[in-house]
């Protein structure tokens, strides 16, 4: 950890303003940032504490949706009665992540911005294009069991590690961002995270001079909600593959199939074509495979993580099979 100055941002727009400086980082729960600072993966000269800003509430939106402030803790979101009732996929995804202690500190905004757990990103003595542009990707020929099989580039094969955003992606939530001038913009969660391409250090849409203030969920979407996270250790482990699903089946036919995937890519993976395969059709094994084909059409393994491709297919089958059973 390098010495840093700690300041308190008096308002979201001030916080946004402070991030104009490339050496400033916003800190709320700090569950990811502080670890990375100890390893000197992150070396900010200034931390702006935003933990006391007025963004820590969950409120109903006029259209019947829900606004989750950027500083609401993961625990508070997961236990909120409306989240549990109307958006259980989100509660389940959050509870599948980290530990109770971490969830008590981690915030909505911070969770969206968490960095990859790639072994080589977190070791400053190893080449990593994300941490040190142009130095190379150590993971491609290294230990890559946890790495991506979708949307990779020859610059980076890291995964986005979170669970919460996978569920938000299935729910088509919106990220609200305040700019330094006090104006706001919003970005669908599905578009918030970026693929690595030639700029793996750019992980999301958040620019300098911006701060996340909230995530809004649409009016209740109904359906049955699933969050299936596959891992060899049953808690406190990142997903090998995860599936967030909001499914409706009427008369044996899919009438809603919003599916997002974790553990496969540099972002929560959402492709409307996967659900489109299912809609209006009768559930059967062949159909599930067809949906998996769409999901995995461009999948590419790197040796150690080849297994993720059949595992993603099987996990999708598991979720859809369960949904069919529950609907029967």
């Amino acid at each position: 950890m390098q010495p840093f100055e700690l300041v308190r941002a008096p308002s979201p727009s001030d916080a946004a303003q402070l991030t104009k400086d490339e050496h400033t980082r916003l800190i709320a729960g700090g569950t990811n940032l502080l670890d990375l600072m100890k390893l000197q993966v992150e070396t900010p000269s200034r931390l702006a504490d935003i933990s006391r800003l007025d963004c820590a509430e969950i409120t109903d939106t006029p259209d019947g949706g829900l606004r989750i402030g950027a500083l609401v803790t993961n625990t508070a979101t997961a236990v909120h009665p409306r989240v549990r009732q109307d958006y259980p996929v989100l509660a389940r995804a959050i509870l599948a992540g980290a530990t109770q202690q971490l969830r008590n500190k981690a915030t909505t905004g911070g969770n969206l911005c968490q960095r990859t757990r790639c072994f080589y990103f977190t070791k400053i003595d190893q080449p990593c294009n994300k941490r040190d542009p142009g130095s190379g990707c150590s993971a491609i020929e290294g230990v890559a069991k946890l790495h991506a099989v979708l949307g990779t580039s020859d610059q980076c094969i890291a995964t986005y590690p979170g669970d919460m955003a996978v569920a938000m992606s299935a729910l088509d939530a919106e990220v609200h961002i305040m700019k330094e001038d006090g104006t706001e913009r919003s970005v669908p969660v599905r578009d918030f995270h970026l693929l690595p391409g030639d700029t793996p250090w750019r992980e999301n849409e958040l620019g300098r001079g911006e701060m996340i203030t909230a995530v809004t969920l649409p009016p209740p979407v109904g359906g049955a909600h699933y969050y299936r996270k596959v891992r060899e250790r049953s808690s406190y482990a990142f997903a090998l593959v995860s599936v967030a699903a909001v499914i409706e089946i009427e008369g044996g036919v899919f009438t809603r199939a919003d599916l997002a995937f974790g553990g496969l890519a540099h972002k929560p993976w959402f492709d409307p074509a996967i659900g489109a395969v299912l809609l209006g059709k009768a559930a059967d094994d062949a159909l599930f495979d067809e949906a998996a084909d769409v999901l995995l059409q461009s999948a590419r393994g790197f040796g150690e993580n080849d297994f993720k491709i059949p595992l993603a297919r099987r996990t999708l089958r598991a979720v859809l099979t369960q949904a069919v059973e529950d609907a029967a």
Partner: protein
Amino acid sequence: MSTTRTENDGKARLDDMKQGVLGEPLPRIDGLAKVTGTARYAAEYPIDNCAEGVLVTSTITHGTVTRLDTQAALTMPGVIAVIDDSRLITRAVQGTAGEAPQQAPVTVCYWGQPIALVVAESFEQARDAAKRIHVEYDASPNPSLSPDDVTPEEQEDDTVSQGDLEQAMKDAAHSVDVRIATKGHASAAMEPHAAIADWDGEELTVHASLQMLNYNISELADALDIPEDKIRLIARFVGGGFGSKLGISPDVVAASLASIKLKRPVRVVLSRQQVFQCIMRRSETTQRLRLAATSEGKLIGFGHEALVSNLPGEEFCEPVLQSSHFMYRGENRELMLNLARIHRMTAGSVRAPGEAVGMPALEAAMDMLAEKSGVDPVQLRLMNIPDKDPENDLPFSSHKLAECLRQGADAFGWDAGPRKARQRREGEWWIGTGMASGARIHNTMESRTRVTLSADGTARVETDMTDIGTGTYTILAQMVAEMLGMDPAAVRVDIGDTRHPRGPGSGGSWGASSIGSAAFLACRAIREDLAARAGVAEEALDLRDGKVGGGRTLVDVLGGESLSHEGHYKPAKAQEEYTAAGFGAFFAQVRVNHFTGETRVDRMLGAFGFGRVLNRRTARSQFLGGLTWSIGTALTEALEFDPRDGHLVNCDLAEYHVPVHRDVPDLDVVLVEERDAIASPIEAKGIGELGMCGGAAAIGNAIYNACGARVLQFPITPDSVLASLPRDSCKLLREAGAMRGLA
């Protein structure tokens, strides 16, 4: 007064004692201090003017440090010094070495090796400065990184060749010839390695997190090149060791050298990453098992070979075959252990070295033999228990494997009927059961402890023995209370300090039986003094609740005097005429997910025979820990090394997966109590490691029984289960009509 007693007199004296506290499930006497945070661990001692040190570690695999540019670091605020003394140690010391390991850190033998120490006023300053030290290297090209890259060295002491195994394999009605791989393990103790060294110009006092102060003081003296009598080591509480703290670690020497040089106290705490990268790994293994059996399942041939690895120059070689030598019958035998020299971090003792990985592989092969021969797995073990050590004809000091198998099977509800894989489903989950035998060699070590019976009728026991969370404090109090007839609360246990008599150290599961025996012998001597005062024979001395023979009080008999004796236990020569081991049986029920290959343990039971139980609560806790490590070995724990520079990539507790609460179901422990008078004067054997010596195979065998995936590696991860599933499992499931719409 001092008394030397080295052997038991053959009488089961402890069972004649009257207090009745030994073996009782007494809560830990240090428990309250631990759960209230008042138990002080090495780094927690408040010491004035303490400087903070952080190790600088190498970023090459093999070569020489040509230049250490400290200029930038030394000008940073708070930075006091950079220590690059040639006495710094490059790796942790192997257990019981008693001398320094390789020093001179300019020679780099593995990625992450300590090469210098930065000392600053604050920990944060030192940690930052350590990253600013520019190191130049002359790197050796292409160091060997994988055991497959090199020609291994045969460990001749472990080689056994009896009869003709190849012929036996041909003659056998049923045979198994299988290769099984296990990944490396980390000890993963909660408390990181840490030391505070304080040189006062005359004497060096070091608070450190260590398991074996009796060896550690010699190791530190050798490393520093100062006499042992100038050193005091203190380790009153140790937050887990699991082998990683048997020998001194680089922090201890670095803090000491810095304190001597700077003439002020210096604290060095390893980061979690450093603990993983520069202390000890358990070697990965590749093993070949050959079992040849008659049509009834009687073994006529037994083969076990293993390949393990370590750094060049290290003597330690994961003793994979340790219990295989005597576990089962089979007159035709081939055992061979090979060691590959590679430039990964030091391999050393990690949680039950040898049997922790050797027994699961053997027991997986036994499960395959059971299937081939159609013999029930429990029955197969029972019929192959040898009457005596099959290699050297020695008798066993005691042998409770059969009782463990029978009692364990009963308690678990083992179905001895015909076994077939993939017979039980609950929704997506295949359910199955499996079992395995367990064994761990028994050792004792020379030990001394002083016991003082004070004039006020209380007692004190003093030794440099450590309690690494196992319960040493408590069993020593119970031993003394039992022998001297008092409430354990009247016994003060003062341990973990080299000012006291030398104990055996905590490791190799020998702690309780060795130090317990020394305490027993010291109390015997005190009893003789008391008997003389009371005018009775020692054998007739009835001590209970602070009274002699139910009449006079101890205080009265002592008449204002204290009695103090040093018990000195030395392993008896007679031990060499026996093969001694603890035995056990493991039973597990697991569920394996048809879709994802995830395994969850539903329930697990272990039955163990290990001599006298000193405390039923702490003994059971030891086994609960062992069963938990068995789950880790079976399902989650694996060190991953980079193929290009050999560095350990998953070097923290987030990425090295020890089991979490949710992975550990209700565990059941059956204590098959026995008396083993050969094993130790107190008739106890080792217990700490036995609980993980075979248990992983019970889980692996249950996975096979559940879903038909015979995975020939540990850990058995979801991807390996899916890769080993029978191709027709989906079809079979559908035919069985288990689930609607199942793919």
